[in-house]
C-alpha cells in the first residue's frame, strides 16, 4: 500500500509554547487514520499543517507527494478538509451550498448524489441555521468531499452530537472510505477511534506517544482485564492469587476485583466453583483505548464531550 500522508519530525511553536514536538506518522492509502488525544494535545495544529493552513516551524509534511506550503494550489484540488469551527451563512440552503462548493472544482462529485449519501436529500431547501447539529456536521463532511478528494481530513466531526447522530456520522465515514477516500480523523473520543480507525496516532502533549491499530495499542499497553464480583461466601485471597492468570486482587467492602490476563474469567469462576463460591454481580472489564492511553502516557484521555465551541 502506498503512503499518502507522510509527516516527519514536525515542530510547531506558538510563541514560547511548543505545540508539536517532533511529530511523525504516515497514513496509508484507503485507511481511516485516527489522530487521537485529549484537547490541547496538538491534534488540530497537526492537521492544519497537513492542509496548509499553518506553517510548520520544522520537519517535513507531504500529502499525496505535495508540500502543503509550496504546492498548496495543487493540494487544494485533491485534499478535502472539514474544519472544526467552520460554519456557513445562516441563510445559505443545503442544496445551494453543495452546488456552490461543487463549482470550485473542475471535476466535482454529483452534489445531488452526495446530498443523498449524507442523508440530507429532504433538507435541500433548508437554511443552514435551521439544521440540527448532526445535519450541519454531515453537510460539512459533504462539502469536504464535493471535490472528489483522494484524502479527507475530518476534525472532531462528532463533538457535541447526540449518540444517534454520532452513529449516523460513523456510518457515513465508513461509507466514504468504502468509496476509496483515505480519511484522517481527528478525535478526542476513544470510542470513535476504536470503532472507526484502522490505525491511530496517539497524541499526548504535542508528541506522538504511539502509532498502531487500536487493538495493537491496547495489547502494547499491557493494560489488564479486570473481573469484578460479590462472592456468595467468604474465601481466602490465596485461592485466586495462586492462579497464573491472576496478577492482583483487591477487596472493597464485599466487592472483589481481580486483575490479570489470559482466560481470566474462566480461571476465576472455575476456582470459585470448586470451593462452592458463586460470583454474584459478575462483570468483566476489557481494556480499552482509554486504558491504553493511561498506560502509555500516565494521563487520562477522558471520554467527556467537551465542546470547544
Amino acid at each position, binding site marked *: 500500500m502506498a503512503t499518502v500522508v507522510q509527516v516527519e519530525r514536525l515542530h510547531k511553536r506558538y510563541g514560547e509554547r511548543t505545540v508539536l514536538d517532533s511529530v511523525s506518522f504516515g497514513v496509508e492509502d484507503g485507511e481511516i487514520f485516527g489522530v487521537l488525544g485529549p484537547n490541547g494535545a496538538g491534534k488540530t495544529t497537526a492537521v492544519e499543517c497537513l*492542509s*496548509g*493552513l499553518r506553517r510548520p516551524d520544522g520537519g517535513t509534511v507531504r500529502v499525496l507527494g505535495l508540500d502543503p506550503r509550496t504546492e498548496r*494550489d495543487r493540494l*487544494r*484540488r485533491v*485534499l*478535502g*478538509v472539514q*474544519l472544526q*469551527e*467552520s*460554519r*456557513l*451563512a445562516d*441563510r*445559505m440552503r443545503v442544496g*445551494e451550498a453543495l*452546488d*456552490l*462548493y461543487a*463549482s*470550485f*472544482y473542475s471535476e466535482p462529485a454529483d452534489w445531488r448524489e452526495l446530498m443523498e449519501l449524507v442523508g440530507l436529500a429532504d433538507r435541500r431547501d433548508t437554511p443552514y441555521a435551521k439544521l440540527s447539529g448532526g445535519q450541519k456536521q454531515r453537510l460539512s463532511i459533504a*462539502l469536504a468531499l464535493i*471535490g472528489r478528494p483522494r484524502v479527507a481530513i475530518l476534525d472532531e466531526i462528532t463533538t457535541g452530537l447526540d449518540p444517534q447522530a454520532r452513529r449516523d456520522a460513523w456510518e457515513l465515514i465508513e461509507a466514504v472510505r468504502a468509496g476509496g477516500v483515505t480519511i484522517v480523523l481527528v478525535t478526542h473520543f476513544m470510542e470513535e477511534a476504536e470503532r472507526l480507525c484502522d490505525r491511530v496516532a496517539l497524541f499526548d502533549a504535542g508528541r506522538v506517544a504511539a502509532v498502531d491499530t487500536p487493538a495493537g495499542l491496547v495489547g502494547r499497553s499491557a493494560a489488564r482485564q479486570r473481573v469484578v464480583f460479590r462472592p456468595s461466601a467468604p474465601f481466602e485471597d490465596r485461592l485466586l492469587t495462586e492462579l497464573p492468570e491472576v496478577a492482583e486482587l483487591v477487596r472493597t467492602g464485599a466487592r472483589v476485583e481481580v486483575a490479570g490476563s489470559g482466560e481470566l474469567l474462566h480461571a476465576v469462576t472455575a476456582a470459585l466453583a470448586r470451593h462452592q463460591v458463586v460470583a454474584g454481580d459478575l462483570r468483566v472489564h476489557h481494556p480499552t483505548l482509554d486504558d491504553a492511553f493511561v498506560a502509555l502516557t500516565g494521563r487520562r484521555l477522558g471520554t467527556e464531550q467537551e465542546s470547544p465551541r
Partner: protein
Amino acid sequence: MTMLLKLTAVESRLMLRDVAWLFTLGVPLFVMLGFGLPFALSPGGPPPEAVSGIESLVVTAVTIALGLVGLYMVPTALAAYREKAILRRLSTTPARPAALLAVQLLLQLVLAVVSLVLLVGTAALLLGTGLPERPAALLGVHLLGAAGTFAIGLLIAAVAPTAQAANGIGVLLYFPLAFLSGLMLPREQMPAALAAVGEFTPLGAFRSAAEAAWTGADQQVLPLVIMAGYAVAVGAAAVRFFRWE
C-alpha cells in the same frame, strides 16, 4: 469563471434574504421624504427659496445611505464571514477567500448605487428637484465616496474580533461622522471649527463634492483628494491588518 458567477448569484440571494438591505434603502428614503414632502406638497409647489434646500436634503440622504452601506453593511458582513470561519474553509478549496471578499464588496457597491438612483429618481418625481446638473460627475463622486467609506468598513472588519463588535464599531463611528459632515445639523448652524473638521471626514467630503455635482457649481479638488486619500491610506491599512481567520 462559473465559480465567480455562482458565488455572485449565491451571495446576492443571501443578501436579499436578510432585511438589512431594505433598512439601508429605506432609512435615507424616509428621511428625504419626511423632510422634503411638506415643502414639495405646499400649494403651488415648493417656494423657490426652498428648492436649493430640498436639493441639499437629497444629497444628505445619499450621504446617509453611503454611510450605512460602508460603515454598517460592509464591516458586519465581512466580519461575520471571518467569525464563522467561512473564509478559512474557502482557503482549503480551490476558491480563494479573496474571491468572496471581492464579490461582497461588489454587491455592497451595487446596493449603494441602487440607493443613489432610487433617491435621485424619487426626488425628481416626488420632490420636484429635477435631475442633477452633472449626473456623470455625481456618479463618479459617488464611486469615489464609496471607495473611501468602504475602506473604513474594511478596516473595521479587519480589526473587529467578531461580527457583533464590527457592527458596534460601525455604529459608533457612524454617528460622529454623520454629525461632523452636517447630516444631523446643517453645517451653517454648527460651530465653525466642527464644520471645518467635518470637511475632512469621508462623508463630509463626499457631501461637498456631491452638492457641487448636483448644483453644477465649480467642483473643488480638495474633497476629491480627501476621499481618494481615505480610500488609499485606510484601504492599505485594512489590507495590512486583515486577518483571514
